């Protein structure tokens, strides 16, 4: 016989798996440290690219001044300050990424916990149905 409660639960779970659950399950398959590490690495790559673009635009804009002063410049000092800006830029981006994704990870875990609780409920309903049947 059909159990209305079981069908309700299964429908709700199927809807979850189809929508927000899909995103959360892919996050939940990682350990926290792995997930955060991956996101921070992605952030370092994208912020490095962003920094290079900004630097490229800046150099292109001041191209003539650079060409005139290139022999007078202390290249070591310029390199150092460029590196310093790069580190600050990447670190700031990495920090924002860390905060945003740690929040997302804990939200996903919370949501998945609710889903697993529903799974347990479903298993219990099945058990009861089996007993009644036998």
């Amino acid at each position, binding site marked *: 016989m059909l159990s209305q409660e079981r069908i309700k639960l299964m429908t709700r779970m199927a809807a979850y798996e189809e929508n927000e659950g899909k995103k959360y399950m892919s996050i939940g398959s990682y350990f926290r440290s792995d997930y955060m590490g991956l996101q921070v690495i992605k952030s370092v790559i*994208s912020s490095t*690219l*962003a920094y290079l673009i900004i630097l490229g635009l800046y150099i*292109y*804009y001041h191209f*003539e001044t650079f060409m005139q002063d290139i022999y007078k410049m202390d290249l070591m000092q310029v390199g150092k300050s460029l590196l310093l800006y790069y580190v600050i830029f990447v670190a700031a981006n990495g920090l924002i990424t860390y905060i945003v994704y740690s929040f997302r990870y804990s939200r996903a875990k919370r949501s998945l916990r609710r889903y697993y609780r529903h799974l347990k409920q479903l298993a219990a309903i099945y058990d009861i149905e089996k007993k009644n049947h036998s």
Partner: protein
Amino acid sequence: MSFLLELRDNLRDFYSRYEVYLLPFLKFLLAFGIFFAINMNLGYMTKLNSVTIVLVAALLCSFLPMNLMVVLAGIFVLLHFYAISLECAIVGFALFLLMFLLYYRFAPKDTLVVVLLPIAFALKIPVLIPIIAGLLCAPASVVSVAFGVVTYYVINYMKINAAAISSLDVENVINKFRYIIDGLMGNKEMLIFVISFCATTIIVYVIRRLSVDHAWTIAMCVGAVSNAVILLLGDLTYNTEISIVSTIIGSIVAVLLAKIVQFFAFNVDYTRTEYVQFEDDEYYYYVKAIPKNSVTKSKKTVKKITSVL
């Protein structure tokens, strides 16, 4: 009111029943509108202006993810920029890439704001977008709103200065590049709009979260007024050419449109607000419950009249 509520419920029913067909159709219409607006405003690459290309691109967008529409719109804009000059395309590409790398990697769903804001500017109701972002989105959407304003002003700048940029010395590419960057960076009007729209989004968001009656309506009205005030102050400070009359008319229209959005997204009956107080082992709860406006559908009764001959 009950007629409107019934209409809303019928629309919801209709949408949920035919979602499979309606969603692609609406996406098609939106994409067609966006690409058409880009071609109408820029239109420097004549090949792109053909209706066939716009139709094919819009059809593609109708069944592909929403973000592809934004990517295609970006490609359309960049190709038109390329037709003006290579430097325009480089600046545009660098800007779009920076937006993607620094923000949209985090919040890919926010991309639509960037596309819709230039369209709202063209329709003279730009403040509608920060108000709706404040009502429906998270506070981080201010970044999207700011990017949307920048995108509009980049497009607008290229459109106004296309002739001047093309006529600049082809040999001296750096001068051309500098001319574009200087024009964009020195645009005070853009700066005022960025500040004003970011403030509006945050003000609307904060007020609509307050536990006061009619929070949504207060939020959109205060948002629209504060936007007008900031624009006016900015205009007085930097002597830009922001039309205050059109800002005020645009704000009124935007608030009216936002009320329609509110009708669909947040329709509650404040007259039936209930305050409940209870406790459990760990907390005291002070709950304010506001019932949603709803209406029971009028039942159609079919009366059968049979006559016995």
